[in-house]
């Protein structure tokens, strides 16, 4: 019998393929390695990220689902909760106990109940509603708070870039 992490990832992959949530595609990059996934996330409608298709990479730890995966956008992103290198900083991706920003309640943290689907849905809602208290990208948080027009302009540029439209 294969390892439990592998079996669970296979089950989640099957589930995501059979019932894909709207606007989200995810799966292993290579079917020989289930611990590295790629995901495509569509920008939520009615937000400044609407229309964009954002590629991201998910790296699962060997002890998944006891520990959370890591998620990193592979395209350029400008968002209060995404580091400049694309790493996503939301509470569902943090195990209780480690709190890089010191603001998260443990109720939203990682636990085996969570899943790839829930992570991706949280990321979609994060795109729609940034949490500007988290300082993953301080510039973006500040701009989101104080200069929304400028923020929207940058977001639009990123959306166009992900679609391959020249800006």
């Amino acid at each position, binding site marked *: *019998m294969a*390892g439990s992490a592998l079996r669970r990832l296979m089950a*989640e992959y099957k589930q995501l393929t059979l019932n894909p949530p709207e606007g989200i595609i995810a799966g292993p990059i290579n079917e020989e*390695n289930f611990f590295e996934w790629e995901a495509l996330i569509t920008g939520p409608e009615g937000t400044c990220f609407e229309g964009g298709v954002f590629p991201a990479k998910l790296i699962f730890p060997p002890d998944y*689902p006891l520990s959370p995966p890591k998620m990193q956008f592979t395209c350029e992103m400008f968002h209060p909760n995404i580091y400049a290198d694309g790493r996503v900083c939301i509470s569902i991706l943090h195990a209780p106990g480690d709190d890089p920003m010191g603001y998260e309640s443990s109720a939203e943290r990682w636990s*085996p109940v969570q899943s790839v689907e829930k992570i991706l849905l949280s990321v979609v809602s994060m795109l729609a509603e940034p949490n500007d208290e988290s300082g993953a990208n301080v510039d973006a948080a500040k701009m989101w708070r104080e200069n929304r027009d400028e923020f929207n302009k940058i977001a639009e540029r990123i959306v166009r870039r992900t679609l391959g439209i020249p800006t």
Partner: protein
Amino acid sequence: MRALAISLFSVALTTIVVANAYYQKKQFYPSVVYITKSNPSMAVIYIQAFILVLLTGKLMSKVFFGQLRTAEFEHLMERAWYAITETCLAFTVFRDDFTPKFVALFTLLLFLKSFHWLAEDRVDYMERSPVISMLFHMRVLFLLLVLGSLDFHFVQHAYQSTMTNGASVQLVFGFEYAILLTMVANITIKYVLHTIDLSSDAPWEDKAVFLLYTELVMGLIKVILYVAFVAIMVRIHTLPLFAFRPMYYTIRDFKKAFNDVILSRRAIHNMNTLYPDATPEELQAADNVCIICREEMTTASKKLPCNHIFHTACLRSWFQRQQTCPTCRLNILRAPTPTTQQPRQEQRPRPQPVPNPFGAPLPFFNPFQPLPNENAQAPAPDANQAVPPTTPPAQTTIPQPSRQGGTQQPPLPQFTVSPFMPFSFPRFMSPPPIPPQNFRSLSSEELRRMEGNERENVEARIKCLQNIQVMLDAAVLMMNQYTLSIATSSTMPSPVPQTSTETTNGNAEPTATSNSSKETEEPNDNSSSSGSSASVGSSNASNHASVSLTETDSTVISPEEELRRRRLQRFQQPVEQQQ
């Protein structure tokens, strides 16, 4: 492409150097002497050797591993850099022995080390790979055999050399190869465990435990080896700085393995003692999928106090990380356990350690709402009497009921009973004595006198907390009972529910004996009413049964009954919503 160009260039250079030497000296031995004497020629020869080693390494890794995964390669590079810096450090210690042979031995050591790392990564990957071919097994087995025998040979060689020639660099090699030998043993054990697991169709639950103990034992052996090595080196040479980083990591890993074993043991112990196995009916009632592994629960499963059910093995590995329910995050170490051993708990102190009386917040609510205030206002009765007039006037102006009595009997705090509490406070609840606020104003004799009293007071406080705990247990039990009696009366209109509720009553009653009589009769009433409703409307559907239950109650008009009826309704609501 670039690698090929470099290798070709290096071969060409070497040929030129050798040809030049031979052209000048015409004979073999003089040519060799010429090359070794000339620094540029030696440099070329060294580079050639280095490239040869790299090429051999590539060939070997192709033979034993095929294509390296990116992660494996990165891991290898990272570790190689550390190893190279450590080797350079080691060179500074042994600069007297700096000969080509010595350099060659160190290179060989590094070379073999990298194969150990790769083998380790590969075997760890077994658990995560969906396809393990026959070729994989052949490669791993052959590699382990080769590495193991080489390590063994070098350890033996180093041992004999040290025995005959005394301590030398060979000591370092012997020690390094001994470490590598433990690594081979570790990898082999892991490989065997993974292979057994892969060959069976059902998940092997104890594998995690075996792996844990393997890690612990191997960690211990490595730590002993490192400590022995450092001790020997310090005695005969100098401080082996180059061994410190790996030693630090080994000790850290060992500590982690030790912690893991302790946590795992605790988790297993908790699971075996505190949580019941889930019955087939409970598995049927739940949706039967373990939320941790997303697989069906057909094998051993456990039910937590919050009624969430998981595989025993899944829960065990989770509890090593956190002692919470994965679904609802209930802290299972602090949660009250509704056990059947309720009787006479008020006399017997509970085995669990009592939390710090005033530090930790109480789980549900604070029965002594005025406690923090009184803490500031009212010192303990005895201390009060002895308070000299220097005490702040604010304290004396506040009316203190304990003052008139001045006895050992502590003051009675006013209870603020939550409306959700199905019973008022029983008599055995003696309120905690309050510690005096200011010790500075007391003389040493008074303090000594107080010490004795304080001890009693602390004991009383602990007892009080124990009582609270018992009460909370009882509260949980009663809640269960309410839901159970309602559920049974509504689902099974036969005499069976009556007996079942009565048995749970029997369990609950002893805790409630010291409660007021009103409280003890309540559950009885509850069950009898459910029984009567069952007998009256045996064909009724679930909703009817619960309605008739409330109706029978409402025929009796007394304020107490009215209150109870409302409480019952409150408990019924969630149950009905669930159905």
